[in-house]
């Protein structure tokens, strides 16, 4: 809602400056989004007179003018033709900055000096279009007066961001009313008397409401003998100041009154209304109608229309029809002022995408009691500006019931809920200032009838809010609540989520967050099989773009896109993870499933520096190591790595599924070269994926901690030749199967193939550390045990000890 400082002053007296007023309005809940000082910076554009005008010697279309700015005569080159010598004009002097950051400088135009510019309305931001320069009334103001001062346009525009509940403030009077209530002053009386001199209105026009439930009030007046003409300057200026384009005197009056009183009005050319009659009804299904914007609309039976005897002439509360609009030749006017049901108007406007100043107000609810006041004021102004005679009386069909039930209000409850201690009289005074009718009840409560325009006040709590608002939120003391102690700690789910994030960060990983929606072909890019459940995603009914049209079922595509994008910026050493929800459709009628998932991707070199150690590329074991450390920290037991069940998006020879007992909890592997290509990634990427919900389920909360042995250890190495078909883990398992509690640790410390190792074999070296919990082991004992281990290895596995 736009309103200006000067306009508000016409309705209420205040002494605040524009800045103070803006602060006051904001603290009333009428938030001033921006302030525009009209004419600011244009003080160098002044009233001036053209003393002499002659042809430019070098250009047919230019003239050379001698212009008097009150102090001196300056030379100005001008391209407009619509003025003659002696004309009073707007001169932008050197140094002026016109809207659009257009600086006026001394210049030479085709060899002739020009010390300023004669301005058009458009150049001063006063009109969207203008033909030629502004020619002013010679009596307007002394030469040299700043033009905005001369035109009375020096004003401040407030753009107020209204919340949807404050439909009463979609008008100048509404804002003035709230201001007056806050300041504790009365609104100034306003209005111009309407002289009715024609026939009784009933003899000229007729109105019928077929659907009173959608149109509880419809009022109309008839004015004949009007002359449609451009509006006078004051009206044009007023509308321009709040950003409304002037059309003609009659339409401008309806717009002015709408902005002033909040009542949308519509003027019909009465001679074009068949039967000089109005019928308010719903449209017929599929009925065609052309609105003022020349668009043909197909209507539904739920649309409310204003009709004449034959056809629709307006889309009620939204827009008039082309078939009855005011034209230059119009002389008889039917002026409509009505109340339409908000929901009906909203439905129609929304469906047709027709959001107008009128529909905006009807949708939010207007003051049903002011319907005729606005009608009368508009009729009076039309008679004043367009001439003609207003028929005697107004048609006012008011089948709806506007009686408001009183609200039972307890002043002490207002104090209690807000946390203030106002006197009862202070509280009631606030309600009275808001134009509520109050009557005190024997039990101490108060019956309150709010004014009609305050559609948002229906309950006691609404009145309590008004008390808080008018008294001032800034006057509410800050207190700390007195609360009961409740026992609560983060859920296991929350604790493990935090722990996993912490652990991944400790593993040098960077957390990323991608959008939850993705492209429909994301699953295809991962080469998922046709029957993979991750191909069934929840679709958005109204996506913004196709790439964000389904809810993701896996975090991998986002992770890989992020990887590719970072690589494009030459960030090649990457360790990324994302821990977010994935989304699966509900199995039956229930809620969709939104489990948390964890994915990671690593690429590039292992650690950054390189001056002391060679930079080595990361590989599968780096990714596996992260998963291992995570599972260890969560104390998830029975972990195994299964290379027989690998996901489609991994390199089949360099990946595996991760199991905990019999449960598959995730996967790790090198990205499949085809998938890598699908995502435009040029370097090898190693990924892992973990089912967070299973981590929560399997994580053991109680760890088994043992005290370390206090006796010395002894280590023995075994180097052996192992066929490639034997997994390294078999060797470790074999040693551990010895079940000797003196074996403290078994470690693979070297894996080698190549020179000196036969084809098809690997040399693997392990180190076993022996230690007892009870005593220092004797050399003989260690030797015996170690020999047993070696024999066992050789017997159970096809290995040769070197």
């Amino acid at each position, binding site marked *: 809602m736009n309103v200006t400082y000067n306009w508000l002053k016409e309705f209420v007296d205040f002494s605040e400056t524009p800045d103070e007023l803006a602060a006051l309005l904001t603290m009333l*809940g009428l938030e001033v989004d921006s302030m525009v000082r009209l004419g600011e910076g244009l003080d160098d554009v002044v009233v001036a007179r053209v003393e002499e005008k002659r042809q430019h010697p070098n250009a047919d279309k230019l003239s050379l003018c001698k212009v008097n700015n009150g102090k001196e005569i300056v030379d100005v080159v001008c391209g407009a033709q619509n003025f003659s010598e002696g004309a009073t004009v707007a001169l932008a002097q050197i140094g002026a900055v016109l809207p659009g950051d257009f600086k006026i400088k001394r210049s030479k135009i085709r060899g002739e000096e020009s010390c300023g510019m004669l301005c058009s309305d458009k150049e001063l931001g006063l009109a969207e279009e203008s033909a030629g320069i502004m020619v002013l009334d010679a009596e307007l103001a002394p030469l040299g007066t700043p033009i905005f001062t001369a035109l009375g346009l020096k004003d401040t525009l407030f753009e107020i961001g209204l919340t949807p509940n404050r439909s009463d403030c979609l008008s100048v009077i509404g804002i003035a009313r709230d201001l007056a209530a806050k300041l504790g002053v009365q609104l100034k009386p306003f209005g111009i008397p309407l002289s009715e001199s024609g026939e009784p209105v009933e003899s000229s026009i007729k109105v019928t409401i077929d659907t009173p439930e959608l149109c509880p009030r419809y009022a109309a007046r008839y004015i004949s003998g009007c002359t449609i003409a451009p509006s006078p300057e004051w009206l044009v200026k007023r509308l321009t100041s709040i950003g409304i384009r002037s059309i003609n005197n009659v339409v401008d009056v309806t717009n002015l009154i709408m902005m002033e009183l909040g009542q949308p009005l519509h003027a019909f050319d009465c001679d074009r209304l068949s039967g000089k009659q109005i019928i308010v009804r719903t449209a017929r299904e599929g009925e065609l109608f052309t609105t003022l914007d020349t668009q043909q609309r197909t209507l539904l039976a739920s649309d409310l229309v204003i009709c004449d005897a034959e056809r629709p002439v307006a889309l009620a509360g939204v827009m008039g029809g082309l078939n009855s609009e005011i034209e230059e030749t119009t002389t008889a006017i039917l002026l409509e002022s009505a109340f339409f049901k908000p929901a009906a108007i909203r439905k129609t406007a929304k469906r047709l995408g027709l959001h107008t100043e009128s529909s905006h107000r009807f949708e939010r609810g207007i003051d049903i009691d002011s319907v005729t006041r606005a009608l009368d004021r508009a009729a009076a102004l039309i008679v004043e500006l367009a001439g003609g005679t207003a028929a005697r009386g107004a048609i006012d069909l008011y089948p709806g019931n506007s009686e408001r039930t009183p609200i039972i209000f307890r002043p002490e409850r207002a104090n209690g809920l807000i946390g203030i201690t106002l006197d009862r009289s202070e509280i009631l005074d606030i309600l009275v200032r808001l134009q509520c009718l109050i009557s005190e009840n024997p039990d101490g409560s108060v019956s309150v009838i709010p004014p009609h325009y305050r559609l948002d006040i229906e309950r006691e*709590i609404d009145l309590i809010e008004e008390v808080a608002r008018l008294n001032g939120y800034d006057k509410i003391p800050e207190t700390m609540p007195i609360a009961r102690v409740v026992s609560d700690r983060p859920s296991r789910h929350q604790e493990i989520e935090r722990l996993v994030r912490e652990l991944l960060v400790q593993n040098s990983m960077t957390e990323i967050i991608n959008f939850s929606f993705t492209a429909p072909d994301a699953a295809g890019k991962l080469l998922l099989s046709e029957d993979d459940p991750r191909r069934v995603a929840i679709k958005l009914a109204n996506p913004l773009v196709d790439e964000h049209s389904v809810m993701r079922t896996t975090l991998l595509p986002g992770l890989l896109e992020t990887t590719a994008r*970072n690589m494009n910026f030459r960030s090649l050493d990457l360790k990324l993870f994302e821990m977010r929800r994935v989304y699966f459709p509900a199995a039956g009628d229930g809620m969709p499933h939104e489990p948390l998932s964890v994915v990671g991707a690593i690429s590039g070199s292992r650690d950054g520096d390189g001056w002391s150690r060679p930079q080595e590329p990361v590989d599968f074991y780096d990714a596996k190591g992260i998963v291992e450390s995570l599972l260890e920290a969560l104390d998830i037991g029975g972990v195994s790595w299964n290379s027989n069940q690998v996901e489609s998006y991994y390199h089949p020879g360099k990946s595996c599924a991760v199991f905990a007992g019999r449960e598959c909890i995730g996967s790790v592997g090198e990205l499949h070269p085809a998938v890598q290509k699908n995502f435009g990634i040029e370097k090898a990427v190693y990924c892992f994926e973990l089912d967070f919900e299973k981590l929560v389920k399997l994580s053991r909360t109680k760890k088994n901690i043992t005290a370390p042995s206090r006796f010395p250890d002894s280590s023995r190495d075994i180097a052996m030749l192992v066929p490639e078909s034997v997994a390294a883990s078999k060797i470790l398992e074999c040693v551990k199967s010895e079940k000797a509690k003196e074996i403290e640790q078994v470690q693979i410390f070297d894996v080698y193939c190549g020179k000196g190792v036969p084809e098809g074999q690997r040399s693997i070296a392990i180190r076993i550390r022996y230690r007892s919990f009870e005593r220092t082991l004797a050399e003989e004992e260690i030797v015996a045990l170690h020999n047993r281990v070696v024999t066992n290895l050789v017997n159970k596995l096809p290995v040769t000890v070197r």
Partner: protein
Amino acid sequence: MREQLEQLRNGALQAIETATTVEKLQEIRITLLGRKGELTGLMKGLGSLTAEERPAIGQLVNSVRDEIEGALGAALASAQENLMAERIRSERIDISLPGRRPVRGTKHPISLVIEEVSAIFAGLGFSVAEGPEIEHDWYNFEALNFPPEHPARDMQDTFFVENSMLLRTHTSPVQIRTMLKQKPPVRIIAPGTVYRCDSDATHSPMFHQIEGLMVDTGVTFGDLKGILTVFTNQLFGQKTGVRLRPSYFPFTEPSAEVDIACVICGGKGCRVCKNSGWLEILGAGMVDPEVYRHVQYDAEQISGFAFGMGIERIAMLKYGISDMRLLFENDVRFLRQF
């Protein structure tokens, strides 16, 4: 024997005196006192002495050994000291070379803000609640007093999915789910992801909010102001408190927009606060009785407040980020700074 001992002693002491290195001294020790050393050899000869000679010579042997050991010990200590001094004098590294360390992992700024805000509210006795992102209209709108066809629904552009479900437009449905599950007192915050179909420089179709809810007996609007003052002072580390302005949310009444003094300029006015000195960071209010009706709480018996804030907004203010899109571009050059 006695002569031999004297000779040995003199020779040894002289050798010790001239030896300068630790190695040399160790060598002398082995030559004299080792298992096959000279003194050890002489001691073996004690057996051949007469019983009368033995005590005196034995005493002499011991004194010679003590003397040599003492001299050796002192010489060794001084040689070691010299050695250390030499090491300290000669060993030098370039300490300006970068340290060897693993790359530092980082949490996303959104996670950092959620953790920080949760920690502050945990200290005030608020626990963390969660709810689904794909929500029923009833929880997201109706139970929060947004009737169907109400203009207030225009405040939140909604993404719809099938079966009259939608992507939650705010974290407020968690209020409803919590109150349906438990009776007062309620004291929760609910961080989470929310969605609105809006995308430009200042709007992301996906963003994050933290909802707060406190319901108990006798909770006032002043208490809301107190809690938010404590919270914002702790979060931004300033003592300027909050400014509440009347506003409107369907599920609270009275409702307020909550401003803090601009963290950039301290309230003097700058580009970030559009010269107002204030920054809007929260929406809040007293829970509307209509909401209590939907969750079967008795509005005459209890009262409470709710608040909600945008996490991106807080992250941008805390870290001085000017473009929200940076938060979702996942450029590691950006993310590794946190």
